[in-house]
């Protein structure tokens, strides 16, 4: 099987795996325990905290470990809003966020908060003047993702941070789950107050992630009890998971630039070949390397159904995704693609091809060939008109 669904989840890197096994066997203490087994585990957690902090240009005490990206998003958004709601009742996000942000905003809207959902342009990017226009004196939170999980579009995080700097009441949260360890982002430079990340998108283990929270920012915790993570996130530390996240972070840095350039060139070759060989294909998102994540490709085949395509490719031993994994089963049209102005036809017929460290050029070319084998036949069955 050729696995090209790395934005849904990634295989654990062999070195991360070794790390997990070592920690499980030798460092099983509870970091909250005062004895040597506890101290040993605590040291590991603190080392990991430094590694993650460094990758984000943050201070170690600004990193809080969570059970994943979803928890980090919920914790940041709910925690900030609950803490600072006395300052105002207006919050801002975008039309293209992951459900773990989007649905929290929907919940808060039900709770009586005023929510602005920023629109996006045809490549999926919000416009800075829309941000400026939306800001009010009542705005307490703006949440914008760094890289979109469906189409890979990169949002202008530093520019948004600069705008928000003029509104001291408004905190800035960034969902960086799809970009962490792949596209550098400095929380200092971009003036970010909270940032979410997840290990399993970066060849780390499932069930662990982190929230960067700027020192001066206080949140109402989502889980309370033992007082771990400075009281911000209670619960016994997932020590192997945390160590695995750190290891994955370190490994991701190796040849990061070269790897990203490589993905970009494969992506370009892929798109060129597809456009050349297939009819009725639309490429979604921003294809430039600064504007779109090099490791995510999104295509629509109007007139077809994404699920049908995914299964047809599976028969050809190529695994890709229909929309994002988290919403695969439900809504029909992709909310993200619809927000970009695509027709229902295009928004229900998209597939996502996403690369990881184990991906090779040949995999991408094999995917092109598989598409060449399945698409024309399916188009004939579905009676998609020829050009």
């Amino acid at each position, binding site marked *: 099987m050729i696995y090209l669904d790395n934005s849904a989840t990634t295989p654990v890197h062999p070195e991360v795996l070794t790390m997990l096994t070592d920690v499980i066997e030798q460092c099983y203490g509870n970091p909250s325990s*005062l004895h040597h087994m506890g101290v040993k585990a605590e040291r590991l957690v603190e080392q990991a905290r430094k590694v993650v902090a460094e990758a984000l240009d943050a201070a170690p005490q600004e990193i809080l470990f969570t059970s994943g990206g979803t928890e980090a998003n919920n914790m940041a958004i709910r925690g900030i809003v609950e803490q600072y709601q006395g300052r105002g009742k207006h919050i801002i996000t975008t039309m293209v966020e992951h459900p*773990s942000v989007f649905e929290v905003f929907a919940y808060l809207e039900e709770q009586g908060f005023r929510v602005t959902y920023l629109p996006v342009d045809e490549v999926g990017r919000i416009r800075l003047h829309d941000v400026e226009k939306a800001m009010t004196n009542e705005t307490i939170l703006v949440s914008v993702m760094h890289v979109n999980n469906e189409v890979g579009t990169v949002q202008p995080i530093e520019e948004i941070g600069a705008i928000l700097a003029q509104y001291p009441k408004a905190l800035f949260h960034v969902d960086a789950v799809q970009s962490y360890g792949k596209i550098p982002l400095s929380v200092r430079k971009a003036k970010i107050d909270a940032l979410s990340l997840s290990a399993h998108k970066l060849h780390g283990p499932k069930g662990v992630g982190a929230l960067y929270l700027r020192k001066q920012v206080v949140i109402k915790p989502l889980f309370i009890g033992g007082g771990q993570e400075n009281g911000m996130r209670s619960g016994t530390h997932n020590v192997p998971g945390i160590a695995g996240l750190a290891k994955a972070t370190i490994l991701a840095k190796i040849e990061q630039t070269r790897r990203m350039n490589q993905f970009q060139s494969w992506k370009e070759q892929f798109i060129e070949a597809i456009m050349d060989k297939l009819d009725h294909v639309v490429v979604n998102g921003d294809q430039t390397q600064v504007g779109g994540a090099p490791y995510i490709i999104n295509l629509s085949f109007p007139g077809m159904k994404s699920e049908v395509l995914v299964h047809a490719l599976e028969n050809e031993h190529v695994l890709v995704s229909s929309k994002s994994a988290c919403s695969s089963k439900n809504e029909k049209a992709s909310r993200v693609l619809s927000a970009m102005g695509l027709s229902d036809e295009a928004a229900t017929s998209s597939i996502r091809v996403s690369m990881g460290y184990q991906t090779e050029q040949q995999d991408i070319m094999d995917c092109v060939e598989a598409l060449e084998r399945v698409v024309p036949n399916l188009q004939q069955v579905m009676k998609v008109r020829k050009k």
Partner: protein
Amino acid sequence: MSIYLDHAATTPIDPRVKEAMDPYLEFAFGNPSSIHAYGRDVRAAIDVARETMAHSIHADPSEIVFTSGGTEADNMALRGVMVEARSSGKKHLITSQIEHHAILDTCEYLEKLGFEVTYVPVDDSGRVHLQDIQNAIRPDTALISIMVGNNEIGTLQPIREIGGLARERGILFHVDAVQALGLEEINVRDLPIDLMSISAHKIYGPKGIGALYVHKKVKMMPQMFGGYQERKRRAGTENVPGIIGFAKAVELRMQERERYREHLEKLRTELFRALKEKQIDFVQNGHADQSLLHIVNLSFPGIDSETLLMNLDIAGIAVSSGSACTSGTIRKSHVIQALHVGEERVDSAIRFSFGQSNTTEEISYVVDILTNTIQRLSKT
């Protein structure tokens, strides 16, 4: 020599559990929400794990919600139920003074939101009295939350009777079974339990995974949004290896429960025997026989527990004073304080918690070291 007697804080992973997890770390890595083969295979494995978990407590698989651990399960149960109850005008919750901080701190938070909480006392052995629960019940009581067995002193609570009271009055009953899982027989069809928190790392499973059993009839507000996982009750990509490991740990505990209980009984007996033989002055905190078998909490009059803990640690013996989950900061044990047996006992309490790899030889060695240390500390 290193002797680990802190299994109530956390346990090492059983190698058989690790072995069960390995395929899901190494190659079966799909996202269960993906519609392709890798996703489907993993989804099927999770379904089996959920069944194993459910069967072990006689629940339906749809009644198991996986979480990141016991703390999340406790928070989710209390917040989820109380927020939902508010719409029907109920705002009162009953718990005990010796619950884990995941419960007590959540209660405090709920109080700030306008809910009302009664913290029932316990007797000097740590037992909750039915009469106190009965007296605390009000027409607007939505939930009673009582732990099965205490994490510091091991005392078991009369769960069946408390649950019976709750059922009679139409009140939901939550139990924190984090320490009791695998040791006590828990059948949610037989016992009147509506919600139950459990955690894998206390039963030789992985850290970062737990679950909340939620009876079908219980409506609760989710605490995490953003996906269709766990029937919309708990969003987030599933911790697949964690879930597989948890189910394996539960399966092993069920198969080996009797043997494990006998093993722990032997270690307990040896501890008390050796202490008496050495004529060490001690009092047990907790209940002499209504107790979780892996926990023994003792106070050594005149000895400061932190000092004793450090000295034992230097000798390679890992025990605990108070509960572990206080993150370096040494809070006085609220549990032993609630027994009202005097400050001295609070300040001199040590928790020994046994596990499957401990031996009676280790226990006698520990008592030797303990004797020397106490003699040395008493002189100064």
